[in-house]
C-alpha cells in the first residue's frame, strides 16, 4: 500500500472502530436496562449463618438471567472488535507517516482510546468489572468522534525536536498511564455515585443498583491508579526530563507542559496519601483522583491549544 492508501485505510479503520464501539455501547445499554434493581433484602449467608460479603457486581452475578448476561457478552465481544480496528487505525497511521503515531492531538486521542480500552479489557480478564463496559465504550465513542471531527490533520513526518527515541519511550509510557488514569477516573466517578446512594440508602435503585458496593469500586479504582502512578512517574519525571535535557539543554524548566505534568503527579500522590489518611478515605480520595485526571486533561487539551511552550507537537 502507498502512504496515501495507508492514511485512508487508517481513517476508515478509526471510523469503523467508532461505529463498533457504539454498537458495544448499545449492547451494554440493553444489558443495563434489562438488569433489574438489586432486591434490597438479598443477603448471602454462609454455612455458619454469618452474613457473607455479596459476590460483588450485580452485573456478572451468577444468578442473573441468561439473556441479560448475553447482552453483556455481546458488548465485550464488540469492544474487542472495536479495539482491533482502533489499533489497526493507529498502526496504519504510523506506517503512513513512517513514525510513531502520536505526533499530534488527533493521533494522541486515537492512541489514548486504544490504551484506555486495552486497560479495561486486561483488567476485565482478572476482575468482574463488566459494570465499566458502558462508561468505557461511551467515552471512547465520544473521544473518537471528537478526534475525527475536530482534530484530524494529514499524516506528516515529525519536526526535528521530536526525532529521538525518547519520544517512543516517553510518550508510550504517558499513553499507558493515561489509559489507566482514564479507567481510574471512570471508576472514581462511579464510586462517588454508588457511595452517595449507599449513604442515602438508595443504592438499590437507578444507576447505582447496576454497580457493585462502593468498597469494591474503591479497591478497583485504587488498583488501576496504583498501576498508572508509577508509569506516569516514569513518563513524566524520568523519561520526559531525560529527553528534555537532550532537546532543550535542561531536564526541568517549568515549561507549561511540565508544570501540568507535575500537578497531575502531585494530585495522584495526594490521592494515594488520602487513602491512608483518616477522614480522607473514600470520598475525599476519589475527588483527588478526579482532580488528577482533570489536570491530565487540561495538560492535553488546554496547554496544547492555548499554552504554547516548547512542546512543539502542541497545537493540532
Amino acid at each position, binding site marked *: 500500500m502507498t502512504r496515501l492508501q495507508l492514511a485512508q485505510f487508517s481513517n476508515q479503520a478509526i471510523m469503523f472502530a467508532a461505529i463498533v464501539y457504539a454498537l458495544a455501547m448499545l449492547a451494554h445499554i440493553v444489558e443495563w436496562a434489562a438488569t433489574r434493581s438489586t432486591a434490597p433484602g438479598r443477603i448471602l449467608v454462609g454455612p455458619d449463618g454469618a452474613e457473607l460479603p455479596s459476590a460483588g457486581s450485580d452485573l456478572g452475578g451468577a444468578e442473573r438471567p441468561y439473556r441479560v448476561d448475553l447482552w453483556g457478552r455481546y458488548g465485550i465481544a464488540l469492544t474487542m472488535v472495536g479495539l482491533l480496528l482502533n489499533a489497526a487505525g493507529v498502526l496504519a497511521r504510523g506506517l503512513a507517516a513512517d513514525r510513531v503515531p502520536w505526533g499530534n492531538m488527533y493521533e494522541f486521542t486515537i492512541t489514548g482510546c486504544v490504551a484506555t480500552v486495552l486497560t479495561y479489557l486486561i483488567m476485565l480478564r482478572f476482575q468482574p468489572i463488566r459494570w465499566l463496559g458502558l462508561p468505557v465504550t461511551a467515552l471512547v465513542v465520544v473521544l473518537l468522534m471528537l478526534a475525527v471531527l475536530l482534530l484530524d490533520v*494529514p*499524516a*506528516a513526518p515529525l519536526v526535528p525536536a521530536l526525532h529521538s527515541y525518547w519520544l517512543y519511550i516517553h510518550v508510550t509510557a504517558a499513553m499507558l498511564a493515561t489509559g489507566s488514569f482514564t479507567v481510574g477516573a471512570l471508576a472514581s466517578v462511579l464510586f462517588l455515585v454508588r457511595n452517595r446512594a449507599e449513604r442515602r440508602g438508595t443504592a438499590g435503585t437507578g444507576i447505582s443498583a447496576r454497580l457493585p458496593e462502593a468498597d469494591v469500586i474503591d479497591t478497583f479504582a485504587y488498583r488501576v491508579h*496504583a498501576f498508572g502512578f508509577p508509569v506516569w512517574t516514569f513518563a513524566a519525571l524520568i523519561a520526559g526530563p531525560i529527553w528534555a535535557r*537532550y532537546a532543550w539543554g535542561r531536564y526541568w524548566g517549568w515549561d507549561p507542559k511540565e*508544570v501540568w505534568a507535575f500537578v497531575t503527579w502531585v494530585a495522584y500522590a495526594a490521592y494515594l496519601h488520602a487513602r491512608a*489518611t483518616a*477522614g480522607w478515605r473514600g470520598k475525599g480520595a476519589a475527588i483527588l483522583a478526579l482532580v488528577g485526571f482533570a489536570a491530565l486533561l487540561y495538560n492535553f487539551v488546554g496547554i496544547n491549544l492555548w499554552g504554547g511552550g516548547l512542546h512543539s507537537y502542541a497545537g493540532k
Partner: protein
Amino acid sequence: MTDLAEAPLDSRPPEPEQTPRALSPVELARWAWRQLTSMRTALMLLMLLGLAVIPGSMVPQTRVDPNAVANWQLLHPDLTPLFKRIGLFQVYGTPWFSAVYILLMVSLIGCILPRTRVYWRAALAAPPKAPKNLARLPASLTSTLDVEAADLASRARAQLIRQRFRTRVEEDSDGTIVVSAQRGYLREAGNLIFHISVALVLVAFAVGNLFGFRGGAIVVDGQTFTNDVQSYDDFAPGTLFRDSQLEPFSFTLKDFSVKFLTSGPAMGQASSFTGNLAYKADPKASERDATIQVNHPLAIGNTNVFLIGNGYAPVVTVRGGDGEVVYSGPTVFLPENASYASVGVIKAPDAKPTQLGFEGEFLPTYATGQDGQPVSAFPDLAAPALSLTAYSGDLGLGSGVPQSVYSLNKSKLTPFTDASGKPVTLTIGLGQTKKLPNGAGSITFDSVKRYARLQISSTPGEPLALGSVILGLLGLVGSLYIRPRRIWLRIRRTSTGSQVELAGLDRREGRDLNHDLTKFLDTLTKATR
C-alpha cells in the same frame, strides 16, 4: 482489629491529637512537630504544592521566556506592578513558593527519620506473636489432621519458608505449638526509599540551580565562540557559580545546514538541522571535529552545547555618502514564523554625512502576499531578498545606555522618503546594491549565512537527580505492589493427631486471603498423607 494487626510493619505516623491540652512550651513544640509531620499535614502540603506551581503556567516566566514576559507586560500595564510585587513572573523563586516546598521538605524529613527507626526495629524483629483468638481475624480456618503436632508444625514451617515467609515457632506450656509467619517486609522499605529519594531529587535540583550556569549564544557560520562571559548574549549563573569556573574551550562553527521537506502535506517543515564544529577543550588542546544536532548536544568537559534554534544572517555592505565602507558583515535576523521571514536591524554609526540605520525583514524566498506586502513563501533560500526601511540621523549609541542589536532607537532618526513623502522601502535581491536618496550612501546585499542559536550550560547534580528518581521509582513499585501478609497456625495435640487453627491478615486490601489459606491447608494436608 487487634493491636497486633496495626503494629510494626506499618510505620505510618500516628494521628496527632487535635488540640494541645497542656500548654507548656515543650509540649506545645512537640504537638506542633507532630502536626507538621502528620499524614494530614503532608496531604495538605502536597495539595498546596500542586496549587503553587500553577500560576507559573498561566503567566509567562522570566526564566523560561523573557520575551514573552516583556510582551505580556506591554499588554497588561495595569496588572504588571501587582504581579511583579507577588513575584508572578518568577513563581519558582518566590518566598511563598519556597515556603511551601521547604515546609514539605521539613515535614518529609521529620516523617522519614522516625519511620526509618520504627521500620529498622520491625525489620529485625521476628514475626509478631499470634493474637489470642485467631477466629476473630478476617480470614481463618480450622481442621483436624492425623499427624503428630510437632511434625505438622515443622511441615507447615517449611511450607511457609518456601513461600518466602519469615517464621517463628513457639510451644506454649500446655504443649500447643504456634507458628507465626510474616512476609512483605520490603513494602515499607520501598515506601521509605521512595520518600528519601523525593528529598534527594530536591537536593539535586537545588545543587544544579546554585552551582550551574546557563547561557545563550548565536554563532554564525564560520565564526568562533570562546567560552567566556563576554561571548554570551545572555548569561544566567547560579547563585554560587563563579565566572572563573567556565571551562576554557572554544569552537568554530564550520558549517550549519538545514533540510526542509519539499513536498507532502508538511512541505516547508524542517526535517533536520546539523552543525559541524571544530573544538578545542582548552587553548592548548588539539582541535577535534564534532557534529551537533537537535537532541544531540556536544559535551565538552562538564559543559554541554545544545542546538536550540537557527536562522539567517544576511551579509551586507553599507557605504556612506563619500563611498567609504562603513559597515560590512553578517547581521543576525530573528525568524518570525515557520517560513523564516526574519526581522533585524543594521546600524552604521560611522557613516558620513549622517549616521545610517536600517530596519526590516529578510525573506529567504521572496514573494508578494495578498495585501501587497512582501512575504516568505518557503523557509529555504530560493529567492532571498531584504526589505528594509532606511533612516538617517542620530542612532543614539553615544548616550551610554546599552542598546539592543535587534532594535533601532528612532527618537532622533528620520526615514528617507520618496517624492510623495512616504518612507521608502528598499527591496534588495541577492547581489544587488541600492542607492539611498540624496546621495546619502548605498547598501549591498552580498550573501547569506546561517547561524545556530546555542545554549551552553552546566548542571551539576544531574547524576544525583537521575539516580534518585530511578531509586524512587523502584521504591515506589515495591511500596505499591508488595503486599505484606501475616499467617498464624495454632496446633493442638489431640488423641488422634492434631487440631490446627489457621488464620491470616493482609496489610493491603484486595487479595483473596481466604482462598490462599484454603490452598495452604490443602497442600499441607496432602503433604502429610
